[in-house]
């Protein structure tokens, strides 16, 4: 019968396709997982001070103001040297901006990294990923800095014509730092 043949062909093709995909999935599962872990790990390592542990694994989750924060702890010779955390601003020009912030043990920023996936405008807001903008956060702490862009009377140089993005990053970093400061002891106490 005609229609049975139709159904049969379609079913067979689907089954074969399914099997094939399962195989490929099987093969790529590990690399994909590794790639996303590495993606994160790379970002974390980029912002942390030199350390000899594996911060991705030394993580602690802290609940603050209704959000949960993951802190990745860096140690050198078993000494707490700093931590990295991801902070997200929903005030970006194009939507959420996720930033990886690395702090030293003394609470000063080691470095920040804007994570992929932000939707700021190329050529404008996207400059928040540039060294010039990110660089100015290094060395700042919650206390010694007026956490606002210059336009709003603060200390951070905004990117020209991208105040919104600059503001978003600034706010996000500040919020994260505050959480860090508040919970520094718990974070520093993390052990493998």
């Amino acid at each position, binding site marked *: 019968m005609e229609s049975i043949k139709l159904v049969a062909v379609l079913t067979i093709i689907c089954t074969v396709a399914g099997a094939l995909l399962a195989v490929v999935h099987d093969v790529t599962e590990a690399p994909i997982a590794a790639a996303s872990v590495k993606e994160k790990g790379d970002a974390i390592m980029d912002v942390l001070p030199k350390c000899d542990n594996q911060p991705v694994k030394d993580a602690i989750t802290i609940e603050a103001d209704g959000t949960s924060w993951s802190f990745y702890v860096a140690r050198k010779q078993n000494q707490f040297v700093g931590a990295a955390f991801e902070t997200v601003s929903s005030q970006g*020009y194009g939507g959420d901006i996720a930033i990886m912030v690395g702090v030293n043990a003394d609470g000063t920023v080691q470095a920040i990294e804007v994570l992929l996936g932000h939707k700021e405008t190329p050529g*404008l807001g996207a400059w928040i990923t540039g060294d010039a903008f990110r660089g100015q956060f290094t060395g700042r702490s919650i206390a010694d800095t007026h956490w606002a862009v210059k*336009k*709003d009377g603060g200390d951070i140089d905004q990117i*020209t*014509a991208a105040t919104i993005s600059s503001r978003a990053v600034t706010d996000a970093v500040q919020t994260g730092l505050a959480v860090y400061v508040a919970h520094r002891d718990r974070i520093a106490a993390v052990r493998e």
Partner: protein
Amino acid sequence: MSELAIVSSSPHAHSGSSVQRIMLDVIIALVPAMAAATYAFGWDAIRLISACVLACVASEGVSRKWMGRDLGVEDLSAVITGILLAFNLPPSLPTWMAVVGSVFAIVICKQLFGGIGYNPFNPALAGRVMLLISFPVFMTTWSTWGIPAPLAVDAITTATPLGLVKTAIATTGELPFTFNGATALQLFVGNQNGCIGEVSAAALLLGGLYMLVRRCISWHIPVAYLGTVTLFSAILWLHHPQQNLNPGFHLLAGGLMLGAIFMATDMVTSPVTKRGMLVFGAGCGLLTMLVRKWGGYPEGVSFAILLMNAVTPLINRATRPRVFGAVKKKKA
């Protein structure tokens, strides 16, 4: 052989109007605003206006030549595009950017469609918006010149009144100044920051009056536009006076007058029927206020007009007049 008689289809009489004459009238109407611009911004105004006009006329001539068409600059419409584009630029803009905008306006927005009459979008506005998006830094850097408070903090301003309001509302949630008779006068005569053509509402209104008298424009679009803005801003203002300035401010600040009088009225890109013009003007008004109040930009005139340009064919279609005799009337 003697000259041959001319044979053409009727009518054999003509009102004597011509495109060139209309365009010349518009240029005349733009003179007061050009004077005001020169008074306010001096050399920069002259520099930008001449750069834009030259670039527009030249690119029109060159592109038409290149397309194998007759020169077509004598209708003067490119001159208007040039002046109006310049009017929409901040005084400090580098000359080369003005030239890029002019070429974009004339070549991409006008000549690619076949030249005058065929362009669906207002070339000068498309040029401005292209520049605004391409070079936001330059397009939002305002000159610093002495302007009395309240339109400027400490007598020097680097922002337009609308920009001031927008940032103030966004940061402090309060209005930066109150709007009173003095502020209105300041805005009206042109003591404010902004694009070179939009500083003086008075000069623009004068030009508009001239165009009305010369029948270059009809009252429908400007009135509907300004009326809708007034209405919309009045509602907002009455609803929440702490967050919204009163309608007078919205009317006088920014590019509204320039847009309503000179740019929304561009006949090529606006509807042909009177009813359509009213719809067009009202649409511009709504969109302008939408952007001013909730949008990412402090000023929405350019976008509003461009968006309404886009729906103009639909408006024309929807507001087709009822043909005489279309409804069967039996004996009265």
